[in-house]
């Protein structure tokens, strides 16, 4: 699959150049910053300057999901995509205001440690530890998979080799450099990823709107060279979306907007906010600076740096939407000879594939996922050729052909090669029509009205022949589509290609595209290394030092930390290469579980001195239990091995528990309900249960006091 892609040698050479340069920089920094003690290994000695710590936090925070996937998600979702922007940045505010200052004052390395000490219970510690490791792991596996996608898409190596290279790099600088090595490497990675994101965004913004600031470009009119009537960019997108049956790009809710209603948008956003606030790898960042004052400035720098990417992503999303959907610059209406280079490149990876289901030789990228032509009405898409055939008098522009842009990454290699070689021939070979039917269809295709776009010709067409023609078209589409989906294909291109392909869509220079690739790798590696360090410190500190061997020496703890991070890299790499089916689904829900489990326990632990062990532990169990149960019922097919097992345990799909049975809330947003349940249960039980001991109350008092400005980082004293 790779050799064709790499026919574009210029891009390949640039990519190799950038990847080698950036990786050498990371390794060089790691070597210079290598450490010898646990303090340096777990919290970088607590002496990183605030702006540098802010950059490292930003690189930690902005994962492969932020860099590669987020703009693609927004591009497809329009307004509702804002939940990711608000969820992840709003969560940072919660973290910086509600949690971080107090956890820093508490002075231990991890969230499970705080929960264990505050509720004076090893059960609580263990629950929080399991949640933290689960959340971190699903997140790390996602990063590793991202590394594999980037490498396979551009360097022509197998995804497994890509993951292996990424693993080796992270292994070296995390095991030797610890937090110190990771922190300074992340500073370099921040610059790589932010410039890689901004350069193409600025270039495309200039090209489409004439504005050098992408956020301003989003609000501007397009240049006459793009559209002579110069509409606002977003108005143009709304029209394009409508023209091809997609919901409005900017409308918030209602018939015309995305799949989520107000309640769902709210719940998903809230779950992301509370969930990110609980992500352990960012909390630990508040320990790596000297004073509490520096910690606050570092939080400000971090969100400032993060906002550079987050304010630009909506513009990239909108630009990409234009290049995908537009019938001049984009794919719609293109014939096999007119397909743009970026499409041909990505076609090789199977993440986007045009399958000419109706055999008309033209691409149709629409929101019509059925097999018959539809038209747009205020009630949504309805069949265009219903009885009575009043359609013929209608304006042809509102006709939506069945969607032909699919993804075929999952289908067998031999079938994939045939499909890529000739999308039309593949359909003909798999249309399930008899010989006589094929001949008849061929004859009808040559009629004057067969393009179905000429009202005049259609009005004059013999009804019976036209009916037969439509039936044959539909049969051909149905059979071929069924075959493709059965083989493992799916509707709509993979959203992860959007950011990586946009510079190519806008025909920017090869080195820009190559730089974006290096940026994607930087984003994935920086987040993966930060999370792996948290996993290893959880194991070495919370499990080994606190539970198994409290008398462990400094050297022993450091060794356990290094071994744990090495093992964690290998496990994460293994699952990155062989992702179990459920991982992709679970990553999106890791936030929900974090929100429902430790967020309420930490907040109540800090702001109430009355909440004791029993209510907190019960609350956590209820929150996790409800959230996990709901997610399992919603995603039974992938989580419970396969469809048969799911049906045997929970019942047939689309019935009872396997519908969104809690007020229609999406599985991604259910963490919000779990979190509320956790709060309610804990608060309701508190008056009937024992108050915390004097020792715990004294501890809560101490974390509320201002930090002594002359003291070193509190964590440094442990």
């Amino acid at each position, binding site marked *: 699959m790779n050799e064709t892609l790499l026919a574009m040698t210029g891009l390949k050479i640039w990519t190799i150049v950038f990847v080698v340069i950036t990786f050498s920089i990371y390794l060089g920094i790691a070597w210079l910053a290598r450490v010898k003690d646990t303090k340096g290994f777990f919290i970088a000695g607590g002496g990183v300057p605030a702006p540098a710590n802010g950059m490292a936090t930003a690189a930690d925070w902005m994962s492969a999901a932020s860099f590669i996937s987020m703009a693609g998600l*927004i591009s497809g979702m329009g*307004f509702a*995509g*804002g*939940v990711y*922007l*608000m969820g992840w*940045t*709003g969560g*940072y*505010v*919660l973290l*910086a*205001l*509600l949690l971080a*200052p107090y956890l820093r004052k508490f002075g231990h390395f991890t969230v499970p440690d705080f929960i264990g000490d505050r509720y004076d219970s090893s059960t609580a510690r263990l629950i929080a530890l399991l949640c933290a490791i689960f959340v971190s792991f699903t997140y790390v596996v996602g990063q590793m998979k991202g590394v594999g996608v980037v490498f396979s898409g551009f360097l022509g190596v197998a995804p497994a080799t890509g993951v292996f290279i990424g693993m080796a790099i992270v292994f070296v600088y995390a095991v030797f450099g610890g937090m110190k090595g990771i922190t300074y490497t992340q500073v370099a990675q921040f610059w790589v990823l932010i410039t890689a994101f901004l350069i193409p965004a600025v270039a495309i913004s200039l090209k489409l709107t004439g504005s050098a600031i992408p*956020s*301003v470009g*989003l*609000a*501007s*009119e397009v240049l006459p060279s793009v559209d002579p009537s110069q509409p*606002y*960019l*977003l*108005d143009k997108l709304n029209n394009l979306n409508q023209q091809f049956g997609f919901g409005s790009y*900017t*409308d*918030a*809710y*209602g018939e015309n907007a995305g799949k989520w209603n*107000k309640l769902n*948008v*709210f719940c998903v*956003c*809230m779950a992301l*906010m509370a969930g990110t606030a609980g992500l352990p790898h960012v909390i630990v960042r508040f320990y790596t600076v000297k004073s*509490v*004052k520096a910690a*606050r*400035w570092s*939080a*400000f720098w971090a*969100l*400032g740096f993060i*906002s550079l990417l*987050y*304010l630009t992503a*909506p513009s990239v999303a909108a630009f990409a939407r234009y290049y995908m959907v537009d019938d001049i610059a984009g794919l719609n209406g293109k014939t096999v000879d007119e397909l743009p280079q970026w499409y041909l490149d990505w076609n090789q990876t199977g993440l986007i594939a045009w399958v000419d289901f109706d055999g008309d030789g033209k691409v149709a990228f629409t929101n019509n996922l059925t097999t018959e032509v539809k038209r747009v009405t205020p009630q949504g898409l309805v069949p265009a050729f219903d009885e009575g055939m009043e359609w013929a008098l209608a304006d042809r522009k509102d006709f939506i052909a069945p969607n032909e842009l699919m993804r075929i990454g999952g289908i067998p290699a031999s079938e994939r090669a045939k499909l890529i070689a000739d999308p039309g021939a593949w359909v003909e070979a798999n249309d399930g029509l008899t010989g006589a039917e094929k001949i008849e269809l061929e004859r009808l295709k040559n009629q004057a009205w067969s393009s179905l776009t000429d009202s005049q010709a259609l009005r004059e067409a013999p009804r019976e022949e036209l009916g037969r023609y439509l039936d044959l078209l539909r049969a051909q589409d149905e059979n071929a589509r069924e075959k493709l989906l059965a083989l493992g294909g799916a509707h709509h291109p993979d959203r992860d290609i959007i950011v990586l392909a946009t510079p190519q869509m806008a025909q920017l220079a090869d080195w820009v595209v190559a730089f974006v690739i290096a940026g994607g790798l930087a984003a994935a590696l920086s987040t993966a290394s930060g999370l792996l360090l948290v996993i290893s410190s959880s194991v070495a500190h919370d499990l080994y030092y606190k539970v198994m061997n409290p008398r462990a020496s400094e050297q022993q703890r450091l060794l356990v930390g290094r071994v744990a991070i090495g093992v964690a890299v290998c496990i994460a790499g293994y699952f990155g290469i062989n992702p179990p089916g459920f991982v992709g689904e679970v990553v999106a829900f890791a936030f929900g579980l974090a929100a429902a489990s430790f967020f309420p326990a930490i907040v109540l632990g800090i*702001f109430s001195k009355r909440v004791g062990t029993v209510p907190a532990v019960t609350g956590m169990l209820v929150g996790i239990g409800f959230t996990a149960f709901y997610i399992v019922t919603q995603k039974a097919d992938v989580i419970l091995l396969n469809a048969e097992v799911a049906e045997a345990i929970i019942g047939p799909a689309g019935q009872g528990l396997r519908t969104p049975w809690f007020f229609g809330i999406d599985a991604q947003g259910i963490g919000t309900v779990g979190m509320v349940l956790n709060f309610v249960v804990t608060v309701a039980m508190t008056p009937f249960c024992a108050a915390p001991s004097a020792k715990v109350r004294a501890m809560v*008092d101490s974390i*509320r*006091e*201002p*930090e002594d*400005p002359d003291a070193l980082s509190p964590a440094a004293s442990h």
Partner: protein
Amino acid sequence: MSAPRSAPADEPLARLKAAYWRRNVTIMSCLLAVWAFVGLGCGILWADWLNQWSLGGVPLGFWFAQQGSIATFVVLILIYALAMNWLDADYHCRAAALKTASENGGAA
């Protein structure tokens, strides 16, 4: 005050700490109120209503969801850093004054 009396010199310090915590909670609540109003309110709950107006070519609700809320969050963290650093400095100043006063009192 029903709490058992500790060393008399600690009482003003305890009051100072309590006052510090109250002001800390006030600052935090105000900032979180803005956070909720702009992010959850303008960006989600009232977004459809706000969409009737436009900022340049961007409907207002959409703008809050994808631009305005993020910019607001950055400003909130800036204000928090300034306010809390000032509050800390103020506390340490008062605590130092208390300490000097009690030492002087002890000497007299």
